[in-house]
């Protein structure tokens, strides 16, 4: 039994690390991409100095440093696995210093599992792990000092240092040290003096920080590190985490002696390990937000222009949220498949085509992609800017800055494009791209020949008008009228009419696509045209003047039969006809 338990103790941290690695690598990879895009780590001394200019800033710096590697999800998964394994190791090591026992080994996994659960929320950041780890590093070192005055001096000196490096994690360090001192034999007066001194220094640190940095709310200065993307919100998870880091090592002190006996140690340990695996697994499962991962996945594919991956994902399971559907529709359009296939997937109205602007960093980012590819370069620039400005922690976004550089390059605003590129040249993973783009600055010919930027230059509006989100069809119409070969503007315009069920406008705009010379009339247009024709003609299948295929005609007949004769047509039609425009028109709200 003991041998087995020793073996478990050795491999459990690695199994835990593997589980974390696989979770973030396979189930949550796009959460990692999501984190990466909403920060901008610069490899400059100025960035470092700026980050460490507030309490907890060093942990923030380390957090943003590792988050830049999340661009590669497997690398990010590995980093998180190592960090959470380190967290367990420190908790266990401190516990062992307090009272060596194998029985309590499993509970050292509670804080890292808890942090794993926190990380299931896309707004918990990697910086927080560093804050906690720094607190634990300091606390572990405390145990190596034997001499009591030296140990006390260490505590008092470390409090301000740790506070500035890791923010509020200093609280569990200070309290932990004081508790340990009180648990030791010695003069009560000395312990009281230490407690008072620690309290005074802690209070002094917080007050001093507020004096130096009056612009920060006091609570934010106490927490210091940005554990959460919304710095004005202070989720209870942070305090619970600190409490765990304090209480779990200290619980080694209060472990009943029966559990420490060698014969009971292994059994206790194994049972606790099992309980932790079951309970931890359950908690992680219920906190895993698949719907958000789904949106992030589509967003990532759009960002990387991996249109086929987005479509493949939709083929496995049709997306339903407006943002995912908008990404899918863009992918379909860029792949030349939208007008034929869009109704094969779930459609949720015009919001699933071009979502309306919201003061939100995610929606703006995704919608900006659609405007960019449509050639609304200024609008795309605005959305990139607004997305970055909406970031609640005031960080910069590498993705936004990249898009700002691109849109300014396309617009010929080279001076400001250069400004953004200079910033990107100070990053690890965008430097190469920035250097590449810099070579295009002020080279009109090269930009015009570029497959993406050159095309977008042709697509963008040649006349000025104020954009209006309430009249998206008008905006698309203006763009199309300036360039009748702009197939995306045409397809988005008609898709907008179909999704808003505005068939009059569909008929009005449909002829504008003559110059696009489709090999065959797209299926959704065939379905709409024959439907409109059927409203005013007796035998639409025979008389329809548009090039509607026999398959569509047959399907209309079948659809009509069920629609007119079934008592519950929505359910019956769902099976074989939910991929038609008619089904969307009749049954989707």
């Amino acid at each position, binding site marked *: 039994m003991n041998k087995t338990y020793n073996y478990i103790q050795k491999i459990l941290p690695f199994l835990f690390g593997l589980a974390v690695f696989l979770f973030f690598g396979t189930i949550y990879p796009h959460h990692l991409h999501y984190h990466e895009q909403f920060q901008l780590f610069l490899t400059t001394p100025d960035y470092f100095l700026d980050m460490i200019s507030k309490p907890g800033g060093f942990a923030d710096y380390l957090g943003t440093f590792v988050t830049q590697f999340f661009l590669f999800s497997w690398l990010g998964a590995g980093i998180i696995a190592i960090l959470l394994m380190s967290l367990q190791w420190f908790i266990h090591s401190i516990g062992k210093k307090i009272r060596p026992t194998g029985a309590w080994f499993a509970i050292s996994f509670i804080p890292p599992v808890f942090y794993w659960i926190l990380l299931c929320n896309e707004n918990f950041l990697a910086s927080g792990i560093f804050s906690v780890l720094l607190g634990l590093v300091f606390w572990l070192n405390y145990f190596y000092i034997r001499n009591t005055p030296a140990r006390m001096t260490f505590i008092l000196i470390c409090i301000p240092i740790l506070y500035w490096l890791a923010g509020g994690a200093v609280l569990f360090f200070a309290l932990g040290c004081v508790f340990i001192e009180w648990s030791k034999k010695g003069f009560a007066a000395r312990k009281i003096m230490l407690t008072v001194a620690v309290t005074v220094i802690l209070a002094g640190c917080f007050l001093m920080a507020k004096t130096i940095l009056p612009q920060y709310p006091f609570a934010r200065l106490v927490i210091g590190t940005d554990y959460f993307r919304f710095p004005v919100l202070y989720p209870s998870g942070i305090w619970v985490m600190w409490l765990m880091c304090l209480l779990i090592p200290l619980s080694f002190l209060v472990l009943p002696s029966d559990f420490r006996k060698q014969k009971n140690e292994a059994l206790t340990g194994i049972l606790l390990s099992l309980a932790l695996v079951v309970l931890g697994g359950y908690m992680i499962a219920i906190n895993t937000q698949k719907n958000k991962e789904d949106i992030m996945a589509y967003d990532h594919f759009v960002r990387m222009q991996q249109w086929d991956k987005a479509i493949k994902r939709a083929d496995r399971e049709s997306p339903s949220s407006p943002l995912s559907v908008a990404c899918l529709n863009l992918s379909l359009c860029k792949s030349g498949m939208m007008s034929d296939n869009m109704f094969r997937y779930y459609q949720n109205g015009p919001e699933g085509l071009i979502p309306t602007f919201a003061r939100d960093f995610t929606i703006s980012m995704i919608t900006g992609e659609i405007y960019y590819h449509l050639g609304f370069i200024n609008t795309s620039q605005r959305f990139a800017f607004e997305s970055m*400005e909406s970031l609640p922690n005031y960080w910069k976004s590498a993705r936004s800055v990249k898009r700002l550089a691109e849109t300014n390059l396309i617009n010929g605003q080279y001076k400001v494009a250069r400004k953004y590129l200079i910033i990107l040249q100070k990053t690890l993973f965008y430097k190469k791209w920035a250097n590449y783009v810099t070579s295009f600055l002020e080279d009109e010919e090269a930009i015009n020949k570029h497959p993406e930027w050159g095309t977008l230059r042709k697509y963008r509006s040649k006349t000025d008008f104020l954009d209006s989100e309430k009249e998206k069809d008008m905006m698309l119409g203006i763009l199309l009228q300036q360039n009748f070969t702009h197939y995306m503007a045409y397809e988005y315009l008609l898709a907008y009419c179909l999704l808003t069920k505005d068939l009059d406008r569909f008929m009005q705009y449909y002829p504008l696509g003559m110059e696009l010379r489709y090999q065959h009339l797209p299926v959704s247009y065939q379905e709409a045209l024959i439907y409109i024709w059927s409203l005013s003609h007796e035998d639409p299948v025979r008389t329809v003047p548009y090039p509607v295929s026999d398959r569509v005609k047959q399907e209309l007949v079948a659809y009509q039969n069920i629609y007119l004769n079934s008592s519950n047509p929505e359910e019956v039609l769902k099976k074989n006809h939910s991929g038609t425009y008619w089904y969307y028109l009749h049954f989707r709200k």
Partner: protein
Amino acid sequence: MKAPVYIGILCVLAVMTSCSQPHGVTENKQFPPIYPDYKEVTIPVNIAPLNFMVRRAEKLQVTITSESTTIKLKGSNRIRIPMGKWRKMLQAASVRPGRIRVEVTVKENGLWTRYAPFNIYLTPETIDPYLSYRLIEPGYEVWKSLQLAERNVETFRERIIADNSLTDNSCMNCHTYGNQDPGLSFFHLRGQGGGTVLNRNGELRKININNPEMISPVVYGNIHPSGDYGVFSSNIVLPGFHTQKGERLEVYDSESDLVIVDFRDNTVNPFPEDFPREFRTFPVFSADGNTVFYCNAQHISVPDSIYHLRYDLLKISFDPASGSWGSKVDTVVKASSMGLSVCHPKTSPDGKYLLFTMADYGTFPIWHQETDMWLLHLDTGEINKLESVNSTYSDTYHSWSSNSKWFVFASKRDDGIYGKPYFCYIDGDGNASKPFVLPQKDPHIYDNTLKSYNIPELSKGKLPFGATDIERIYKKTPAENVSMK
């Protein structure tokens, strides 16, 4: 044993000395490509050191020479001039105008180049030592981080005087002084605990200058020289977004009018009703306080006719004794007949000039690239476009120094998006010199920052309040209400 050590040290020193002197220097007759551009500018004797950089340089050697002093500096691609030496050098010019000569030698791609030396002209006329501005990302509709900051232009010290992270992330408008006096200033705080914050010698009041009879809470404004009145515009401000390249944001009013606020009894005196319904905005008192200058345009349909919206500069008399408007309006600059639109007039404290900006159309100059600064000589009525001051991008939002010899303005000349404070000297004949940007300790700061310096305003001294005072007044002080006169 000792002799070889000394010889060794001497050899090392000799090698070091020889390394420090560039070899094979080629001469270039052009001025060096320094940033910020401090070549041939006129500066006051109390300005902070003009640190600069050469972006592509591997090494820099700079010699700054005045009549009595020489400063030699080396750097990688930037130089930082020691404060003490700089002060000493400038002190010599505190009695009579002088100049300093700057020689820059640059190592680029392994080769040294000595550029033509340039001059920096010194004038004994000082600039007000403090500058306030709003730090904001030049966005569209969304803002997150807003700060009002105060900078000592004689040093590099910057202080945050208001931060919206302490005021529920509410919007806050730019800070405006009365008479360039740190003891008399205001700014608008928006949001639930908001109001117009009025500072009188550090005593802060929060006034909700809004009333059902007004169009909206007040927006642009100016304080009367006596400090008893404020003149404000009340505007419904709307944004529009241009779709064509280069154009960005259009901010326009669907309604706007003027009011006088008596701070002594919180009464509001609306613009006389005898005049037709028009757009009136950007009011400012004359130096003697007996006139209000403002921008005026015919009421047209916006945004449909936005490209035809043009404001003229008008004036109306004001009686400080009774706080009442005059009955006659005069046109000062008929910009619309020139196909231009006036905004942001500012009278000089000595009453000689009125500085304003003109754009092709509209009322929000900061996003109009063509916006330029013009100077009106109030005694002769002559107007001059300040060619030596203006750039190809927006130059606007200016403020005078208390001696009327300097003004500061926000210019987007570097990249078209990010505004920075530029200082400009006006000589006795009203001639403007080449402007220079606010010096920074690290000249890289302008490359790295993504913030704009909005509405820079000069002041004779340090403001008597800080960010925590603003937090307190936002959260704890109830706003005073106003009533219509």
